[in-house]
């Protein structure tokens, strides 16, 4: 029997974790306020490429097993950092539907590692299959009962739709890069940004713009009252050794002059972990 890529992914210590900060622009300037944990498949396999990794996992319908392996690696990495930051980690929505024990398991892992669930955000990555709403909503309730919060990932892309926003009632909406990319040069994207910023504010959610790559994109996003940003403009995903340096130094890159705009309107967003 040959070894499949899934066998290699699920082998002990095969999955590694890298970190990408999410920055907030406020009166105190630019500051990392959340650190996203990103899982990487085994080196020297096709799953070393993140896109191939997660596409393969979905095609194999192996989200629950792989999510557990990714979460275990990420939580262990967070524990080793001993940092007071808020961390986020990605979970396939399908995992919450199919693995009825996932939330209990992740709660036990956090307890074992002495991690405060209130400092953890679960980013839900969508999946387009038939949906068991009751199981999904039950899992969300259980995650919140632990003290953790919910982000809806990839908003604007494929299945991260309005129904899911209503289902999740997320504390965070992460705008997909398909909306962010070139938003400074595209009136239609700006119309979407305007609407989504209003929606997030009315729902009491924080809006995070993913994939910010240029100062002019940042400036445009700020003009739509968005204050949380992630992307190569600020930092690429980095290993544990570098994320501590970034968190320690706070501001790896000074914002461009185009960021000196008025502060956005007062947000009604829910408080999370006390510091976002």
């Amino acid at each position: 029997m040959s070894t499949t890529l899934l066998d290699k992914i699920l082998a002990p210590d095969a999955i590694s974790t890298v970190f990408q900060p999410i920055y907030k622009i406020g009166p105190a300037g630019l500051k990392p306020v959340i650190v996203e944990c990103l899982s990487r498949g085994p080196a020297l396999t096709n799953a070393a490429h993140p896109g191939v990794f997660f596409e393969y996992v979905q095609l194999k319908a192996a989200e629950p097993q792989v999510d557990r392996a990714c979460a275990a690696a990420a939580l262990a990495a967070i524990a080793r950092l001993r940092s007071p930051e808020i961390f986020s980690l990605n979970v396939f929505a399908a995992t919450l539907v199919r693995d009825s024990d996932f939330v209990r398991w992740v709660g036990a892992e956090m307890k074992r590692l002495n991690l405060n669930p209130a400092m953890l955000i679960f980013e839900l990555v969508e999946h387009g299959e038939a949906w068991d709403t009751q199981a999904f909503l039950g899992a969300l309730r259980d995650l919140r009962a632990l003290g953790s919060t919910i982000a809806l990932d990839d908003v604007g892309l494929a299945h991260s739709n309005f129904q899911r926003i209503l289902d999740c009632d997320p504390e965070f909406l992460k705008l997909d890069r398909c909306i962010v990319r070139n938003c400074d040069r595209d009136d239609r994207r700006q119309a979407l940004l305007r609407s989504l910023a209003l929606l997030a504010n009315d729902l009491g959610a924080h809006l995070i713009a993913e994939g910010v790559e240029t100062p002019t994109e940042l400036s445009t996003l700020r003009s739509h009252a968005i204050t949380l940003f992630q992307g190569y403009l600020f930092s690429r995903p980095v290993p544990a050794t570098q994320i501590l340096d970034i968190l320690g130094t706070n501001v790896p890159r000074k914002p461009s002059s185009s960021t000196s705009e008025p502060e956005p309107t007062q947000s009604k967003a829910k408080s999370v972990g006390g510091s976002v």
Partner: protein
Amino acid sequence: MRILLIDDDETLLGIMAEFFLGRGFDARCAGESEEAIALVRHHRFDVAIVDLELNSIEGLDGFGVLKALRQSSPQTRVIVYSGHCSDSIVEAALRHGGTRFIVKPASLLELLAVVEELCPLRY
């Protein structure tokens, strides 16, 4: 030149990879159709050698790979490499995007000759 080799025979896959790597190809391997489909959705290949009989979830066999190649990478030249060579299989493989059908077993030099024929300018 980028070549994708797809076969669930791990030994054969390794030999093919060594052969093409040794001739200067940028060779990638996939042992399952899901792995191959994920690869072609995120990478571009000049040519792919696709075994039709793959152990995979129903509906995601070699024909699933042909479909993914046609959707995500229509410029890729596809050599279907299979032990099943009835008229209906060959016709279906070519209809689903195969550029050429080669019956297993074939020598590595035969495969190389077809690759060179399909991609003469890029080789």
